[in-house]
């Protein structure tokens, strides 16, 4: 588990465009950087991220080694009904982590 900060509005009006922000504390080791022994540090990045709202895909990302440490994501979506936003990401150790946030739409 890595530390993640998620900013999702708790309430929204029907049809409102809302912004979702996510900051993941992650080294995003590119695999290109060499240690004191000349050997590269093994690649360790978050390679995919997926946001779903009540099971429906909102946004899906493939991430590559050029992305800096502690990646920050922001995207918008239209709030149509109340539900749960879930953000899931997978790193190079195949660790799957999911964060949830409830949004009340009225």
């Amino acid at each position: 588990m890595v530390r993640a900060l998620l900013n999702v509005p708790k309430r929204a009006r029907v049809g409102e465009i809302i912004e979702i922000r996510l900051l993941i504390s992650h080294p995003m080791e590119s695999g290109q950087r060499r240690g004191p022994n000349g050997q590269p540090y093994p690649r360790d990045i978050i390679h995919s991220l997926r946001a779903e709202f009540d099971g429906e895909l909102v946004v899906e990302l493939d991430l590559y080694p050029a992305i800096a440490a502690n990646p920050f994501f922001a995207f918008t979506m239209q709030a149509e009904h109340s539900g749960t936003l879930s953000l899931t990401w997978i790193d190079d150790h195949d660790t799957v982590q999911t964060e949830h946030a409830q949004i009340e739409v009225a």
Partner: protein
Amino acid sequence: MISRRAALALPFLATPAFAQGPARVVVVGGGFAGATAARALRRADPAIAVTLIETNPVYTACPGSNEVIAGLRDLAEQRFGYQRLAAQGITVIHATVTAIDAASRTIRLDSDAAPVPYDRMVLCSGVDLIWGAIPGYDEQAASAMPHAWKAGAQTLLLRSQLEAMPDGGLVVISAPANPYRCPPGPYERASLISAYLRAQKPRAKLLLLDAKDVFSKQKLFQAAWQRLYPGTLTWVSQSEGGTVTSVDPKAMTVSTDFETYKADVACIIPPQRAGRVAQIAGVADRTGWCPVSPITFESRLVPNIHVIGDAIIAGAMPKSAFAANAQAKTCAIAIADLLQERTPASPRLLNTCYSLAAPRDGFSVAGVYQPVNGVLTEIPGSGGMSPVDAPDSVRAKEAEYGAAWFGAITHETFG
């Protein structure tokens, strides 16, 4: 040697047939960089006619101003005049530069004074705060949320706000991303304000929001915070969502991408760039800072203008008063060489920087720098940092050394 002025006046003379007027070097800006440079030029070659142009008749020094904020020191101790420079034969003009014509090598001033010609200029603009870089933080906002990053009225404003704050209040400090003036400054400030809060307002808290994960003397500061200010001082790094994205000076709120904090006192240190005169001289590049030769400190963009101090891209050298002082002396010697058509030697520059974690509790970092492939680079093994586990007696000594350093450098700079 033939000066440009004489060459233009007597274009038919291939070589000078009679004595020339003295070379004219004009220093713009009278902070640590400029005042040191003016004096060092006089020392390097008394034949050079040195002029210093500075808006303010009195300079208010930044090093030590965190102690003023914490009530440990009087602002009067930070103030220095230019009388000693004038007494040493430096022409001191108190005026503001409005334009620089690099082609004709003249400086125009806001006063009625005639334009000032130069053979070489030393530009010491310091930094400008970038208003609006943090949405909501403009010049107006600074009267509610002081930056106190230029010593003077802002320093006293932050001091009086801390004094007026009720016990149990929240102080928020926003530290910018690199590069900026005085890399350890925000952390010393957070430390000394925390010391004041512990003593005077023990229920108050300080939140240090940071646009970085790594900062100057980090291990020393963090060890000190754990020892001295647990429960009072909280540092929020960039990866913990510490980057301030907007402020509202009316509501006294400071926002990141993830939280909005209601502050009783907010000190916002905004992003910076080379000062106004560097911008109008055309010596700053698109980074906002000034690329220079690390040997002569001549601008890489405009010939005959040398730039030193906080305004430059100085490689590994920090933006500190001591670095400005070292660059000024190096630059003065290089200018004296260039005016005599000698080749300046590759320099070595020293920087030492003291910080206080609390009254009588200090530590330092030192480094020696030299040009490597056109960039000022720290010589490996040349400097170092105070040990993290130093005993109280050593930290008390370092605080004394810091005070002595201030006395020495201001004496060397202003006489």
